[in-house]
């Protein structure tokens, strides 16, 4: 019943202790990969790809740069534009963050290592990921700035447009696995023999494109396009609230990478090891983290290399290319599922 604690400590704590422990572990599970991604990819890989070193002064190889940035943002003034809608403006980053934190809940790290084992795991993830749109619209509208409003509306249009290919790309995996449960999907990949990235390569491609768009990373970063809208819906934010948006963005990148790893790269499993072995509860999260880093590497590689689309081109790509392709993928997958 209380798998997280009971499996590690062999005790059966009361419900509230387990919940508190889950919240604490959830915080760590979101913030630690986020920091790792920012350091690894945004600070270091991006720098190396641009022939420079990145942060080097804070700590060995700049490892403490993130803490320094954190401290810097904390001590900045929390500026409210004078005609902003204060409540909406203040609440927006939290809405985005809540969406991110709820995403991580359904991720399984091992046969018994999970927060909740929802029957409708991946469906839940898709649903709560769409909540962040509200936060972004709130930020865009509440700032009472034209750049913010344009950015917010762009973001919302983009997120709606890419929600659909994202969900549809997952459908192929769900058809193959025959379940919406995340653990079930992992188990199905173990049963199938190869990870779903091989049979679902089209789905993986659509998933990666859609995730890139969901995260508003280049080439889909029009909502925060610096050369057009200054920084879009983030224009008026400063200090703590900007930091929350920042964490939200990279935490979502981490979580989506982990979801991608679970759906397409076999989650916590490693080849030739029984997926239900006791040991997987302990090394499973690490395996998942490694796979997550691989997918995040792809995401950030695209981010660093590509220029951005225009808004209408993005919509055209989503509606005229990705959605038909994903429908085709679903049909083909379904036919194979029925025939074989």
């Amino acid at each position: 019943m209380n798998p997280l604690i009971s499996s590690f400590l062999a005790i059966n704590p009361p419900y509230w202790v387990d919940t508190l422990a889950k919240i604490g572990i959830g915080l760590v599970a979101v913030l630690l990969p986020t920091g790792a991604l920012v350091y690894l990819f945004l600070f270091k890989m991006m720098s190396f790809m641009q022939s420079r070193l990145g942060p080097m002064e804070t700590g060995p190889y700049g490892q403490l740069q993130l803490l320094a940035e954190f401290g810097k943002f904390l001590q900045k003034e929390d500026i409210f534009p004078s005609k902003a809608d204060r409540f909406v403006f203040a609440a927006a980053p939290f809405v985005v963050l809540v969406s991110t934190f709820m995403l991580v809940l359904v991720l399984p790290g091992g046969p018994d290592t999970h927060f909740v084992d929802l029957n409708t795991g991946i469906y839940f993830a898709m649903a709560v990921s769409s909540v962040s749109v509200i936060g972004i619209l709130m930020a865009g509208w509440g700032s009472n700035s034209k750049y913010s409003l344009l950015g917010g509306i762009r973001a919302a249009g983009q997120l709606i447009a890419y929600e659909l290919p994202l969900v549809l790309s997952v459908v192929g995996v769900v058809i193959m696995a025959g379940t919406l449960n995340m653990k079930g999907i992992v188990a199905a990949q173990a049963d199938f023999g190869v990870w779903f990235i091989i049979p679902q390569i089209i789905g993986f491609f659509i998933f990666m494109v859609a995730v890139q768009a969901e995260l508003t990373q280049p080439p889909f970063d029009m909502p925060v396009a610096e050369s057009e809208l200054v920084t879009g819906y983030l224009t008026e934010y400063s200090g703590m609230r900007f930091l929350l948006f920042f964490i939200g963005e990279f935490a979502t990148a981490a979580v989506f990478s982990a979801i991608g790893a679970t759906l397409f790269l076999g989650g916590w499993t490693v080849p030739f090891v029984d997926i239900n072995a006791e040991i997987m509860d302990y090394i499973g999260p690490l395996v998942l983290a490694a796979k997550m880093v691989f997918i995040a590497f792809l995401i950030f590689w695209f981010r660093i290399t590509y220029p951005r689309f225009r808004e209408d081109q993005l919509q055209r790509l989503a509606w005229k290319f990705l959605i038909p392709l994903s429908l085709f993928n679903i049909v083909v997958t379904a036919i194979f599922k029925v025939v074989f």
Partner: protein
Amino acid sequence: MITAVASMVSAPVLGAVVAQNVFFYLIAAVMVIAALRVVTTSNIVHAALYLVVVLAGVAAQFLLLGAEFVGITQVLVYIGAVIVLFLFGIMLTRAKVGNEDGLDHDNVIPAILTAVLLVLVMGYAVVDFAGDEEIDVLGNSPTTVEQVSDSIFSTYIVAFEAISVLLLAALIGAIVVARKE
């Protein structure tokens, strides 16, 4: 929060019923207050955001009743799509920050009277009809997606097809109406 509730639903732990009642009243209170703000606030965007609270509360109530799939669909469709559509509509027509006049009719007394009378009549009827009927939530096994989908694609297949056609018609209709000649 919702997942905590959800895990309780599947948990035959002593005291879960008490916790469920506590959560019900908490969520219900928030929902009623938010719903009142939806119909009384003088800021359209605030109304839409309060509506988000109500809809999230509805989703939570669904989870409390063990309807996991419907609850998540509620989040996906309502919060992810319908509210965003609302906000889009508001921002496309007017995006003023701050309160606006003229959102209400000049004379709201009849409306208040209607609503209060209605709630009194319905409340009486409801209490009279189901005063002490208990829902055995813990006795019901939570429904799975398989059950729902089996039901949709066998018993309710005609209704499902009709809904599909309706959605398609609505899609085309919305485009035709909103498009400029």
